[in-house]
């Protein structure tokens, strides 16, 4: 496998075309800030951008919708993310993100766990290309940020006590 093919695995090429979860998010306000939030992320170096909107149902990720403009890596990564986290408990989704980050930062040295990462292991090759790591993480960062927004909007246990 050439280094190019190990970067652009078939999964990535497919997702970059299929773009699961991609939707027109419109301009409207988010309806219920306690369950839905949106985050826009931008990479000033290359102009790539992505907006991710998530809705939580209780402690599960109920829906993920996104839009954006960018390279095949960033588009595919967000599409794969969609498939991986929809329907998952928030904690598990966070766990996947943590593993995914570790993999991307491994500079090709890590042993990604396919049990946890599923199709996202296809991005292991990105870790050898430091300048593409940002592409592969952009959508995930938007997800994480949206999550934080919902949590910030929700009264915490402490606030309630």
């Amino acid at each position: 496998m050439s280094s190019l093919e190990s970067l652009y695995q078939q999964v990535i090429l497919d997702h970059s075309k299929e773009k699961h979860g991609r939707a027109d998010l419109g301009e409207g306000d988010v309806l219920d800030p306690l369950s839905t939030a949106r985050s826009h992320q931008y990479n000033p170096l290359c102009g790539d951008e992505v907006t991710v909107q998530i809705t939580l149902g209780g402690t599960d990720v109920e829906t993920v919708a996104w839009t954006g403009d960018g390279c095949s890596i960033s588009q595919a990564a967000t599409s794969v993310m969609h498939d991986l986290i929809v329907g998952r408990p928030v904690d598990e989704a966070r766990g996947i993100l943590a593993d995914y980050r570790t993999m991307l930062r491994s500079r090709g040295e890590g042993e990604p766990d396919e049990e946890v990462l599923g199709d996202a292991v296809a991005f292991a090759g990105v870790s050898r290309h430091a300048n593409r790591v940002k592409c592969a993480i952009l959508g995930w960062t938007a997800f994480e940020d949206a999550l934080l927004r919902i949590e910030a909007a929700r009264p915490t246990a402490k606030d309630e006590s």
Partner: protein
Amino acid sequence: MTLTSTQATPLDHDEVEAIRADFPILHRTVGDGAQLVYLDSGATSQRPRQVLQAEYDFATTSYSAVHRGAHTLASEATDAFEAARETVARFVGVPTDGVVWTRNATEGLNVLAAALTDPEAGQYTLKPGDEVLVTEMEHHANLVPWQRAAARSGATLRWIPLTDAGRLDLATVDGLINERTKVVAFAHASNVLGTINPVAELVAKAKAVGALTILDACQSVPHLPVDLGALGVDAAVFSGHKMLGPTGIGVLAARPGLLDALPPVLTGGSMVERVTMETATFREAPQRFEAGPPPVAQAVALRAAVDYLDRVGMDRIAAREHQLAQLLLDGVDSVAGVRVIGPNDAENRTATVAFEVEGVHPHDVGQVLDAAGVAVRVGHHCAQPVHRRFGVNASSRASAYLYTTDADVERFVQALGSVRGFFGRS
């Protein structure tokens, strides 16, 4: 500066090969063993052995702080440093005391923009109602400082729009350069479109209304014979790292009379006359604009770079790059689904060719080319507005220099031909 293929004999194949032998980095391989094809000289050029050697020799024999010592090293270093100023001044046709060392061209433009908003600039100080004119093809370095200068001074920023062909829309210029215009700042050559702008025409119109002209010569001085004195601009900037020199040095070249009229921007050692705890007086230009230790080693290296370019001959380099521009344009044109952003013809154009590959993001284009050993730049090339003008966020850009071979261009075109297929576009 009109550039046509008839001006001088282009460097021939053997000469280019001889030049390449001076650039160790061009002989490396990348990725799976592909020989490097470096088509990113528009971002930064490589350094030949002669420049590296000059820097090494200076560091191991004569290095010292300049201007401030009575000892032998200090005077040798000062001589070498000031000789560099002389060489660079002569190279671009300005008096020696019209050369200010900066850290890059960006700093030079910031210094001008800051000085022109300082009340101490007297007649030159920008005021509400004044206009600063740029173009829609500017690099951020020649745009953002003027946005801030306008915001601070109350002046208005205006710009010359572009034609679809990627040239300045000269029909608009007469309205845009008027009695309110105080500064006309524009690129000699665009780092995206490759367009070479008609300096003489713009300068004449600016002079007619008494406006200062400031030339961003970053993409011209390395590639064309440029005589700033003959062009008649008031000031110009360019940088060492794009002309076979090192990073960490740029040049602000200006009419000494203008520099003498402007207040300093950065203050500190070497640029003062008398300093008490309360106040300070400043030296004449160019020293007034060189606070702190100058880039001594970089100036010495830049001199070696200029000597190298001079030896090859700027006219012959320009003629060769004219060929390369044509080769690049023809090559890109031969690939289906690829569109050039910028003029389609090689006249008044540098060998910098930006393009869009239909359905493939520039990052992906760059990656596929890199796997074939071909280094091009992808992104907005620090010029977002010109990309927006042509309906894209980013582009890929191949930019050649005196060490680029015909074979380099062929390898590039061949790799470019494989891009859309790789991503399943047809």
